[in-house]
């Protein structure tokens, strides 16, 4: 019997290939739970039933791998992260893909995240350094532990918010994780659970790292976007305002007229490349955030 449940799960995995790994994981866990419980229950009620038949009956209730996989896929398309547009089909030519980034909301969202991450990075860093050092300093006082507990709670709250931001702007699915995995915990039990949960500590590390990352993202993409825009605006700047391309020492350099179209073209390409880079870095950062904030 174990074999055929395995077979069912394998089939499901195949049906869901290409879906978000989180969805696949959910679907497999759900199916396994139902099938095992169902077969156990059925065999308990009808001991004479053969195991393979029992599984067949349970699958009859639950639905075939294809049917159930279709239900997950449908839900997945409905719960794509808010604001994040569905993934465009890969069927377009490479040229269309390259230039299409100009109308790709995802690229703009990623770029926005790159700028925004400086602000969140500063905030997270300040919050975590203040929280940790205050907690350490107050630990000898009676309010020390409650303060530390509040701080840890706030970290988890911020991690959840950052998860929403990453989901909305970078389009990486960030499943919600329950704060406490056991119910009926007292205040002390909750504190211990928070303290020993690796997710709290990974969230703190993430909040630290977000500052250097934010600085890096912000300065890199500001530079890239400015360079690109400067290229595009070059004719206006040189012929409209009479400003030179650059000053080196006491010499002002102007670009000859015949080169102007080329400079504009390079500016446009530069922006295109920047947006592709933003998308790429956004994906990387999303993966990183997923690994740090919503670990299994």
């Amino acid at each position, binding site marked *: 019997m174990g074999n055929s449940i395995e077979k069912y799960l394998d089939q499901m995995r195949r049906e869901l290939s290409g879906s978000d790994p989180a969805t696949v994981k959910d*679907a497999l866990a759900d199916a396994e739970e139902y099938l095992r419980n169902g077969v*156990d229950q059925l065999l308990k009620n009808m001991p004479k039933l053969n195991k393979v038949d029992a599984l067949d009956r349970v699958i009859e209730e639950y639905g075939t791998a294809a049917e159930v996989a279709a239900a997950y896929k449908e*839900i997945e398309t409905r719960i794509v992260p808010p604001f994040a547009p569905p993934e465009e089909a890969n069927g377009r030519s490479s040229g269309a893909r390259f230039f299409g980034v100009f109308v790709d909301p995802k690229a703009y969202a990623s770029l926005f995240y790159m700028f925004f991450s400086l602000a969140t990075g500063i905030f997270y860093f300040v919050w975590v350094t203040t929280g940790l050092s205050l907690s350490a300093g107050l630990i000898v006082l009676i309010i020390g532990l409650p303060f530390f507990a509040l701080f840890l709670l706030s970290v988890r709250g911020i991690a959840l918010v950052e998860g929403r931001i990453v989901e909305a702007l970078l389009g990486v699915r960030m499943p919600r994780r329950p704060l406490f995995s056991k119910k009926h915990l007292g205040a002390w039990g909750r504190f211990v659970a928070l303290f020993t949960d690796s997710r709290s500590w990974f969230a703190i590390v993430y909040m630290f790292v977000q500052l250097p990352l934010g600085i890096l993202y912000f300065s890199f993409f500001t530079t890239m976007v400015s360079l690109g825009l400067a290229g595009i605006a070059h004719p206006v700047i040189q012929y409209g305002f009479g400003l030179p391309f650059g000053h080196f020492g006491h010499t002002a350099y102007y670009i000859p007229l015949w080169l102007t179209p080329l400079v504009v073209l390079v500016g446009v390409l530069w922006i295109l490349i920047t947006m592709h880079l933003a998308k790429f870095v956004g994906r990387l950062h999303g993966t990183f955030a997923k690994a740090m904030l919503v670990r299994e």
Partner: protein
Amino acid sequence: MRRISRTHVDPLTKGGKVLNDTSAANKKFQKELNSGTVALVLLCVLGRASEPMYGYQIAKHVGTRYKNLPMMKLGALYPVLRSLENAGLLASQVEPSVAGPPRRYYTITNAGRETLRRWIDIWNQTKSFVDNTLEGMGNG
């Protein structure tokens, strides 16, 4: 130019062709109805539950209480549970079970209760609207 290929071809809307297979039309109608009502039913079951319930329990509860579940497999309940959780209407926690795979216990959140109240209102309005219309048709 390559064209975008879609894996799912909708039998009803494909090329605006008139559908001659009524069973497919019925299926689609039922599916569209279910996509909202199943969420309401699950939210309601968990709203009434006195303690957290896990997926199998919920499915069995729904499956046995309401015989001939309208043309759907119990497996279709699970993704709805997941999406309700994603929307913050349900919360879940995984606990190991004595035998078998760990179980995911679902509870309704406060937002879920609030939503359930509103959904019940919406459902009642929809129901009476549809009922009135259908009755009107029967009499006329």
